[in-house]
């Protein structure tokens, strides 16, 4: 069976959730070979998790030349691996980095690429949800080695134990790929809540929340559910929950697809729906019974969020009691 290259998403050797989803998706096409970009030792730290989800082989590209520059070196190393391994496909996470690497790689190896894939069939047919969730498209790469970026939370990760061998990749990056230097990485994370795009539950607040202080209500409900906190564009534009890009759910923000999405004081403009429409279960609280968000909601409460949210939070905490 042909190899399928899977670019591992991780943070200092700890795999992100999407990595197990990528390995699961890859198994439909062939034998997953994980590609680890990182610092020395990262591949070893990741080995158990990657094996758990079926990685037969790990390519360890551990070098400052890869981590110190934006995107381009990773595309270059991948192009080398494609040449060496002749894989059936290359899979990446549909993150900013993942999509940019995919695009660069497509130009380098003259292959087609598709982004934001939510489902991948054994024959390579890829499903994408486009136009703010309104249209489902099935496409196929018709030239070269298919390069596919997979949306977070779209594929259900399933373990398939394997014992991967680790192969060190000799990293030699051209000067051309070292033009954009990463001078610093800054975290603005302000809580231990799960990351928005990875979370299985998201609680978002909108204009109706009214102020930055009131967002404590949203946080309280989120914490009772172990959820991530999100915000609509109207809320971030009003500075209710900074920094904007980290929490904004919508067309120009993040796209989330959790098991449960709770929309509080959010009317449900297309801008917002684009970022949450594929959530599995949607619950809405809004005082306007005509709010478009109710068209999407599996369960909606028409009422004052300042009464409904505290009651719900208390009831959830009581159940855990």
């Amino acid at each position: 069976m042909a190899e399928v290259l899977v670019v591992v998403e991780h943070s200092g050797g700890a795999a992100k959730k999407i990595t197990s989803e990528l390995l699961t998706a890859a198994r439909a096409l062939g034998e997953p070979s994980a590609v680890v970009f990182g610092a020395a030792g990262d591949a070893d730290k990741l080995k158990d998790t990657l094996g758990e989800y079926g990685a037969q082989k790990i390519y360890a590209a551990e070098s400052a030349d890869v981590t110190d520059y934006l995107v381009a070196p990773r595309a270059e190393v991948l192009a080398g691996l494609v040449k060496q391994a002749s894989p059936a496909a290359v899979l990446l996470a549909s993150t900013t980095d993942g999509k940019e690497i995919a695009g660069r790689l497509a130009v380098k190896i003259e292959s087609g690429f598709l982004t934001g894939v939510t489902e991948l069939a054994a024959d390579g047919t890829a499903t994408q949800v486009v136009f703010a969730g309104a249209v489902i498209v099935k496409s196929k790469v018709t030239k070269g080695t298919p390069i596919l970026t997979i949306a977070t939370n779209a594929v259900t990760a399933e373990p398939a134990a394997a014992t991967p061998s680790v192969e060190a990749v000799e990293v030699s990056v051209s000067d051309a790929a070292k033009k954009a230097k990463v001078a610093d990485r800054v975290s603005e994370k302000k809580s231990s809540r799960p990351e928005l795009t990875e979370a299985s539950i998201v609680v978002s607040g909108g204009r109706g929340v009214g102020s930055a202080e009131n967002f404590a209500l949203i946080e309280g409900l989120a914490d009772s559910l172990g959820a991530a906190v999100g915000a609509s564009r109207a809320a971030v534009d009003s500075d209710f929950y900074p920094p904007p890009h980290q929490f904004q759910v919508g067309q120009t923000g993040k796209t989330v697809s959790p098991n449960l999405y709770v929309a509080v004081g959010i009317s449900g403009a297309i801008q917002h729906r684009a970022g949450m429409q594929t959530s599995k279960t949607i619950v809405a609280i809004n005082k306007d019974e005509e709010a478009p968000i109710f068209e999407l909601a599996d369960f909606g409460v028409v009422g004052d969020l300042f009464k409904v949210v505290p009651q719900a939070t208390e009831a959830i905490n009581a159940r855990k009691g």
Partner: protein
Amino acid sequence: MNIVVLVKQVPDSGLERNLRQDDKTVDRDAGNLVIGELDEYAIEEALKLKEAHGGEVTVLTVGPEKATETIRKALSMGPDKAVHVSDPAIHGSDTVATSAIIAAALGKLEYDLVIAGAESTDGQTGALPAMLSERLGIAQLTGARKLTVDGDKLTTIERQTDDGYEVIEATTPAIVSVWDTINEPRYPSFKGIMQAKKKPVETYSLSDLGVSADQVGLDSAWSEVLEFSGRPPKGAGVKVPDEGDGGSKLVEFLATQKIV
């Protein structure tokens, strides 16, 4: 400092959008066509740099004849001139071919920076700026929420990441892409709208750019849409008025879904 801003005419994301039944490309006849939302932020950033450093701002678009409306809209904000690449053979081009066309057009222009939106509101591929960096061999400064030009060469951005940002440095020439967090785009003034009608717009065909027609378009795309359908409407949910127990009812619902 000379800057080229990339703009794209797209179907209004506030209205219903679909693909065409005949060739499965984006339907550009239904609904309203507008300038890409993030493109306005790219133009604003270019104009701010021009105000600080001098130079010229050129708008570049690839699109059918009617994209002229989008060019005028862009020019009304303040750029100096525009380049419009238009050719019937371009219809249906994928991102790979589009990047080749834009790269060829940029080859005709002088620039220190190219600025684009981080992604389009229709295709949302989000890879085009990186692909131009790859094709042109210039630095990629993408996903910016802040852009600083130091002197006339060193350019720094804050690139948005999931939990914060990365500081990325490069020297010009470079391609920058921006999110809507970077600035607040100006509204075109009446004077700007009037002036836009007189600003020079140069039109290039594929042969002007030395791009072969058989390398672009739907038939040469490296991926193919097999089929598409409207997302099935969600089954009607339950909507209850809060009669003092709305929060509890909500939690009961979550319990039936085994979420709590």
